[in-house]
């Protein structure tokens, strides 16, 4: 019953969104408030409806209705309740439902805002949101229905939504269970964060589209959606960082990022989104780059859909693409269609999007932002090329070729370095014009500080030129950011009677975007430090050692004490080694690297034991052991210097984004508040 009901709700929502699109279009063309209002109601109704459909699916997941093929595929009775519920996004059909639900939530929230000043945008924002929603719902209803069930028809098993002629339901005793790799706290929050990021980029795109259609091509659409873009970016960044952390904890290869096509698919909209966040500032301040901003948001939206497509279609084989299906061509068609339509509109409005001024000085803030955008696009080009090159090569030469992590690392490395450099210079440059002289005057102090950091690294015995350049950049950006922030704090402190801490806080409060941005930059710098540490200074060793024997690595001694093998209630076999770790003769503790073998999926998982400090991580993997005699075991050991700064930096990064995105008191609200106090007084 629940399955039929859930499916019915999905169908109704699909039809409703088609209606909403039609009503919105009629309302926009006829300038009829009644039609627009009707479209708005349709938009608002999609959210409770999809909530209902999602609850149905969650109910089936939680109660173990294994006759539903989706439930069968991603859960089993042994899984705890929270995993059963989060299995919603553990498979393709469920994650599409979840995506749609999020989109309905966000689009409804936008629909509820005050539209007084942007009436003409409203129908178009609704239309774009609903077209996106209808596309996903159509995919669910026609191709990826999470509510289909198993039936027995004349001795054959079939999968269908409704009872086939002469069929009867099959109730499997247990499901296959969620892929063990996905049973990790990071994996539970990583997909929703990524999806939240993906979905919220639909909103700025919808506004840009509305601006193009209505011809209201000033920066209103940017101002309205500034916070949406930041929130989208926040979630996308969080999703990427969590994904990295998950890989580090679970995949057991001592890394956090493998340039897997699916990782790249999530990274590409982040790149264009980051470029967008920077370049909209130039439009707001100087009226430049209007066309470029439209291009960036179109690209971001298309890459978001592309990212969902890559993760969900199984078109590229990777750890993530655990789903194979026929929805690939549809995604491709939808992306092409929206891309072409948006570009055509852009060309139509080309002249009204002319820049209001010109750039004068190559050292001005806007010009440095332009270079920043070029570098982001460069990284995007590298990523895109890496993903499509194998397809192109096979198409034209018949030769199967791939590019691996070294390609991405070497091609993007200098571009990332360039971005770091700009991150150091740009905050000190001025809008409009900067000269070498003015820039030099403010930059020399941080430069000297950063060079002393290089001297310190040299003294510490680091001679790799790439590492030195990287460390210099890190020190440079950090000193510029702190110097510039500090300078402003001191100036404010002198001007007002506040103490320094108060000035620090007030300043950030006064100009959240600027100082939130500074905090983000500091986060990026710390992340860069962690990345330099693990990428350039990671050392590893491996060996088979008897009980009591030990391995040495970088001052660490890892001694193999014992091994225990046991079954757990959730249907896995655990082999857990106890190793004691000491460094330079000092005992640091006992750690337990282990291997879980999931019986149901016949899948082993290697879980590292990590001793984590700010200086480095000792990362121990149990890779093999003699089960019978328990004589020896094989370990792989990594020392990952500075890697914790990657996570700390990620945390600060997110914090900075929150500062920048925190709602300001809008003038409208202030006015309301004044009025209400008056009424109270009266």
């Amino acid at each position, binding site marked *: 019953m629940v399955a039929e009901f859930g499916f019915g709700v999905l169908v109704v929502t699909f039809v409703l969104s088609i209606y909403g699109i039609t009503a919105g279009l009629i309302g926009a063309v006829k300038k009829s408030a009644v039609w627009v209002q009707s479209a708005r109601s349709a938009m608002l109704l999609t959210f409770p409806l999809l909530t209902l459909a999602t609850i149905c699916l969650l109910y089936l997941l939680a109660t173990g209705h*294994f006759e539903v093929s989706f439930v*069968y595929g991603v859960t089993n009775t042994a899984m705890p309740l929270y995993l059963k519920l989060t299995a919603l996004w553990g498979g393709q059909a469920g994650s599409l439902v979840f995506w749609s639900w999020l989109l309905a939530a966000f689009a409804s929230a936008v629909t509820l805002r005050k539209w007084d000043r942007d009436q003409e945008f409203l129908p178009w924002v609704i239309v774009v949101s609903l077209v996106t929603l209808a596309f996903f719902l159509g995919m669910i209803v026609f191709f990826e229905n999470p509510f289909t069930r198993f039936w*027995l028809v004349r001795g054959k*098993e079939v*999968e269908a939504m409704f009872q086939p002629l002469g069929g009867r339901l*099959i*109730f*499997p005793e247990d499901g*296959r269970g969620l892929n063990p790799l996905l049973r990790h706290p990071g994996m539970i929050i990583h997909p929703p964060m990524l999806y939240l990021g993906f979905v919220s980029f639909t909103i700025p795109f919808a506004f840009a589209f509305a601006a193009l259609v209505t011809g209201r091509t000033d920066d209103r659409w940017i101002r309205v959606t500034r916070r949406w873009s930041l929130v989208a970016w926040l979630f996308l960044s969080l999703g990427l960082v969590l994904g990295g952390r998950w890989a580090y904890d679970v995949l057991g290869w001592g890394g956090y990022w493998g340039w897997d096509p699916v990782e790249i698919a999530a990274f590409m909209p982040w790149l264009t989104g980051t470029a967008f966040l920077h370049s909209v500032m130039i439009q707001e*301040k*100087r009226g430049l780059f209007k066309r470029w901003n439209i291009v960036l948001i179109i690209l971001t939206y298309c890459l978001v859909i592309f990212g969902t497509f890559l993760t969900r279609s199984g078109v590229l084989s990777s750890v993530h693409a655990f789903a194979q299906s026929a929805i690939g061509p549809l995604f491709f068609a939808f992306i092409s269609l929206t891309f072409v339509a948006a570009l055509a509109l852009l060309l139509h409005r080309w002249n009204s999007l002319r820049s209001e001024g*010109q*750039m004068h*000085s*190559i050292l001005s803030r806007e*010009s440095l932002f*332009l*270079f920043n955008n*070029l*570098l982001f696009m*460069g990284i995007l*080009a*590298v990523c895109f090329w890496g993903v499509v090159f194998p397809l192109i*090569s096979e198409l034209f030469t018949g*030769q*199967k*070729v*791939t*590019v*691996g992590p*070294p*390609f991405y690392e*070497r*091609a*993007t490395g*200098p*571009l990332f370095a360039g971005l770091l450099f700009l991150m150091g210079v740009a905050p000190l*440059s*001025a*809008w*409009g*014009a*900067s000269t070498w002289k*003015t820039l030099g*005057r*403010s930059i020399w102090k941080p430069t000297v500080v950063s060079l002393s950091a290089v001297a310190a690294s040299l003294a510490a015995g680091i001679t790799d030129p790439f590492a030195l350049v990287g460390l210099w950049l890190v020190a440079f950006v950090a000193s510029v950011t702190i110097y510039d922030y500090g300078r*402003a704090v001191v*100036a404010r402190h002198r001007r007002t009677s506040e103490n320094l801490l108060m000035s620090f806080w007030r300043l950030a409060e*006064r100009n959240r975007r*600027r100082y939130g941005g500074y905090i983000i930059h500091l986060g990026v710098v710390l992340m860069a430090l962690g990345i330099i540490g693990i990428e350039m200074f990671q050392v590893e060793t*491996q*060996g*088979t050692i008897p009980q009591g024997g030990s391995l040495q690595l970088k001052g660490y001694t890892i001694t193999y004490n014992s091994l225990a093998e046991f079954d757990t209630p959730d249907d896995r076999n655990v082999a857990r080694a106890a190793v004691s770790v000491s460094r330079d003769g000092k005992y640091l503790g006992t750690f337990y690297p282990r291997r879980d073998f999931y019986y149901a*999926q*016949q899948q*082993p998982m290697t879980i590292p034991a990590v001793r984590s400090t700010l200086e480095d991580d000792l990362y121990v993997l149990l*890779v*093999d052991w003699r089960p019978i005699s328990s004589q020896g075991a*094989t370990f*792989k050991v990594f020392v990952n210097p500075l890697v914790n700064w990657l996570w700390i930096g990620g945390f600060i990064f997110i914090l900075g984004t929150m500062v920048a995105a925190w709602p300001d008191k809008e003038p409208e609200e202030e006015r309301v508040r004044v009025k209400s106090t008056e009424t109270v007084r009266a």
Partner: protein
Amino acid sequence: MQNVPLQGNQTASMVGAYPIRTNAQSRVKFLVGGLLIVAAIVYLIVANTQNNAQFFLTVSELKSSGAAYSGREIRVSGAVIGDTIQYDSQNLKLKFTVAHMPGDNKEIDRKGGLAAVLKAAVTDPSLPRMTVVYNGVKPDLLRNESQAIMTGKMGEDGIFYASELLLKCPTRYEEALPQQSGN
């Protein structure tokens, strides 16, 4: 932005007041700067594609290519022959032989799926075979009739020295429908 001094004596209000004029010289500067960055990006992509592209070959393609790929990182896929696996767990040295199998997924599907193709490859002695040496821990999935995807270099001795070893097994997990249990 209003209350914060931007840089030195430059304030936000001055930005708006900045005189708009065309400056051919600065245009050239922008063009040169932009082109330099674009050229650098293109160079990075092209050079790194050439240096880091990994050709994906089948055993028979590699065997018939002569020295064309000597000294170059390549990827090869082959079917593992179980009887040939030798593993020295003390020194972590692994040696095994793989038989030729088609590299193209569509071709594999056409020939009845991965399991059938692997079985055929292992049992057909007329197919080209290749010895592989790998230094490292023996992966769990390395067993008879599994597909090995190896990255490494072809030695002059005709042995393939793998630096990376990935394995694929056709598993029960791929079955779409559950085992019958009735109710």
